[in-house]
């Protein structure tokens, strides 16, 4: 599957971007557990912030090119219609579950 281009910015493929989102989401979850017991760890906090930032960027890029995954990126594609409801349902093959 080739990368899609949208305006000036080239975008990774849908699968590649989803993988990146999953990886950063997992890292954020694991760092959250670590920070629960180490709330003053600067290295941990920094790593958490970096991963949250990259996750948000990836979610925005995904929403803009392939449709929103989260409600806070629902209007990222600035379409005339409400893209959120037009996305595949999670239990559909095209959705998140396989």
């Amino acid at each position, binding site marked *: *599957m080739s990368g899609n281009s949208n305006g000036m910015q080239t975008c990774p493929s849908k699968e590649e971007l989803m993988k990146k989102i999953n990886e950063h989401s*997992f890292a954020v979850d694991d760092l959250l557990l670590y920070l629960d017991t180490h709330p003053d760890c600067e*290295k941990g906090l920094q790593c958490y912030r970096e991963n949250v930032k990259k996750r948000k960027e990836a979610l925005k890029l995904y929403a803009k090119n392939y449709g929103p995954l989260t409600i806070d990126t629902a209007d990222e594609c600035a379409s005339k219609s409400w893209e959120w409801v037009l996305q595949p349902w999670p239990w559909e093959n095209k959705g998140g579950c396989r």
Partner: protein
Amino acid sequence: MDRYAMNRCGRQPHSQAPVQPRKQCAPVEEECKKEPSMFHGLQNLPVAMAYVPCQTFKTTFELCKALQLGTIFPELFKPFCGERRCCR
């Protein structure tokens, strides 16, 4: 390989997964082999006491590997490989 029979560490490579243009992670089994003995040094501790050493932030796994292994922290990667098992 017998020792891995009870619980394989991670999954086999995704043979039917879509082609991924990004670089592949090293196989999970390689990570299992790196695991040092977690029982080293226990003989020097008093008996009948329980210990939970405090974790400190060191390095993290590559993210694609972390997702496979179930943790981003190498020191928390504790695969059950059937070591030290005994018959009861």
